[in-house]
């Protein structure tokens, strides 16, 4: 099927199978590899992207849903994510780096619609993203730092 959609403000026109997943279109067709496949079932959050202003797991979106959508990956959010990236580096919130893109996008989304920089509130918002290396601590601290110091 033919689909027309925006990725990082660029218009894309593709002809793909109906059951092709958005994660595969983004990673293999469009070479946007910041988002990763950790589970293929929407549990780990490593493939998180913005889809019509909402955060979604791109592994769960099929071609039939993409036509007309406005999509942003980490590559297209350099400006919005700049402060958050700095906070992640400063607070050592990165270890293997596989979950990082997902957490950064989650943070962009959290900061858009939340004013609480309390660790308890941040923790709750992070439950859709898994991290196995760092134990979440430094990610939580990085987000707290980004909200308090860099906003």
């Amino acid at each position, binding site marked *: 099927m033919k689909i027309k959609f925006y990725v990082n403000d660029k218009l894309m026109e593709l002809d793909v199978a109906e059951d092709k997943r958005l994660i595969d279109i983004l*990673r293999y067709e469009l*070479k946007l*590899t*910041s*988002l*990763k*496949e*950790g*589970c*293929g*079932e929407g*549990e*780990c959050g*490593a493939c998180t992207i913005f889809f019509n202003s909402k955060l979604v797991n791109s592994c769960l979106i099929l071609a039939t849903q993409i036509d007309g959508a406005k999509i942003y*990956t*980490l*590559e297209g959010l350099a400006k919005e994510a700049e402060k958050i*990236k700095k906070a*992640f*580096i*400063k607070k*050592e919130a*990165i*270890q*293997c*780096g*596989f*979950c*990082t*893109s997902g957490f*950064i996008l989650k943070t962009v989304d959290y900061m858009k619609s939340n004013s609480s920089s309390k660790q308890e509130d*941040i*923790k*709750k918002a*992070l*439950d859709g*993203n*898994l*991290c*196995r*290396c*760092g*134990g*979440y*601590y*430094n*990610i*939580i601290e990085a987000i707290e730092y980004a909200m308090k110091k860099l906003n």
Partner: protein
Amino acid sequence: MKLIGKNITRLDSKEKVSGEAKFIDDYPFNGIYGLIIRSSIAHGEIEKIIFDKDFDFSNFVIVSHKDMKNNINEVILKDQPFLSEKVVKFIGEPILIIGHKRKEKLKEAKKHIEIKYREFKPIFSIEDSLKADIKIFGDDNSFKTIISEVGDTKRYFNSNKYKKFKRSYKTGHQEHIYLEPQGFIAFYKDGEIKVKGSMQCPFYVSGAIKSINDEDIEVEPATVGGGFGGKEDYPSIVGAYSYLLAKKAKESAKIIYERSEDISYTTKRHPSFVTYEAVIAKNKIKAIKVKLLLDSGAYASLSPVVLERAITHCLGFYDIENISIEAKAMATNTPPNGAFRGFGAPQVMFAIERFMDDLVKELNISPVEIRKKHLPNKKSLTSTHALIREYKEVQNIFTKAIEFSNFEKKEAKFRVQNRKNKSVKKGIGISLFIHGTGFTGGGEAFLASEVLIELQKNGKVKIKVASVEIGQGAVTILSQRVASVLNLPISMIEFATANTKYNLNSGPTVASRTAMVVGELLESATVKLKKRLVNITHIEFKNKKEYLKAVEAYFKVDDVVEFREKFEQPKDIFWDEENFKGQAYLKYSLGVNVAEVSVDLKTYKPKVDKIYALFDIGLAINPKLAKIQTQGGMMQALGYALMEKIIHKNGRVQNANLSSYLIPMASDVPKMKIEFINTNSSPKGLGELPMNGTAPAIANAISNALGVEFDSLPITPETIMEKLNEN
């Protein structure tokens, strides 16, 4: 400024935070995709493989055991084939590899391959394996049996004078759930193959590949998304398959595991069944019999060494004079188990620390008192008959931890609270634990690690070792160790990706050995470089400016740029491999965890409120990164304690996805208070230590909260409900 002991920002942050760092599945790829065809039965023989005549297999590449000169994947024993020729011993055992240019075609093709088996009766439990009516391995199904004696246990057990106390503890599988699944690409160009993938040990992979057709193939890791031991030996299999496909297809070949495949078929933490029987006199264990059983799965894999580490850790560093150990690694018709952070220690440290607390109830003393009674002294011996050299450090860390956590006051406070509060019970638990760093026994001598540094014309020093960055910060801390010797900023150090063609084999990235063993070798090699520079140029450089002058002067008259160092067994470390006696490890790291928990009696849900952790890892090369490692390790151990469980039914994993195999999330994170002590001594290992103490501390806390003995992991709400209903 000496960089060792400093909190410099980790060196790989920028490329990871921008999303530019390339994991294996991120590389541009043009070639064929591979899929493994696996056994659907747990035990039997392949009678026939039928390719459906009505399906077009002409564009498929098919690899079988026939494509290999040698089909044995020798990890320790020579029992496991790369691909099954006839016998299959677990559901999921690889039989064929199929490849096609279009990934979607692979699953379709799989439906058109029928394998006919003659089925044998399978073994799924340690108990059935011990019976040995059905034989999977040898005569008794044991991949390794170790019997060890220290002192004279018979004297105590044969006497009627003493009180005896016996308890058994059980732990299940744990899956690593590295966020990045297993994956490899064998790049094919002009008849040459180069293998790249997700791995901890590139030389293991190149060694495994070479053993197949005697070909020297260059192997290199991509950015690796977590390992935890799950990428120690297992990647040799995936790497070998990608190589075999590429060789046959004469095209690049890629294999990336799906999460369900990864959970179902890759190596896991060994389930354990540990029994202690102790003879007690005056609140002290006079003699102890330990029976230690591990479920190895269908092939030996790393089980013999996991068993060895379990034996060397099964009594912690407690002062016990008479020890009798019988340990076996048993075969079952399930996927082979392997390395997982801790490597046998988390299982037995759970058992011994629960045993100490269970003894507390029997003897009516406190968890603090019983451990104090058993703290080692200068005469105390380990279970392998060596002096506990760190006895002072053990006494010190335990005493400090009681104060640090305010254990005794809290215990009393919770007791009072629990009398009043009927809906939530609070508890506190402690664990004292150890981790021997580096390979067990003669292992480091066997590895004979070598490191190489290369002086560049611009003065930068390039590190060329086998250590792989898997998230733990290896690149950063090894660079810090080298920079410190020369008093240079970190920007003067380059870290070459661990490549089997260009780097030296400094050993695998495992066993908490990177900072300590590889780090020390690198320091020695750098001292050699410094000495040569100073001797030749007579410039005693103290900073970067002077160093660069020395380098300039050096290259005018000399051209030696490579500096190496090789591991030598320290003269004071004695090890007898045959009798399994002696100093089992170069050094031991120590820890104490205190966990505070609340258990909701309506939902039976346990919540960890706070963890106090004291660690003795000697000098932390980068204290900030070290702290993060401990947090991550303790969260992984929290998962092991409370929620991670592989459910098997007739040899098949039932919960092979992340919605039913649960790992900790952000909201599970407790308050943590972490401190490093004894930081003036030289670096010891850290990677695995945090895995060893958290589960027993939490289990002890829950047992304390509810007044019930928990003897298995994980302790889920269902476990708590059942236990409370029992009592």
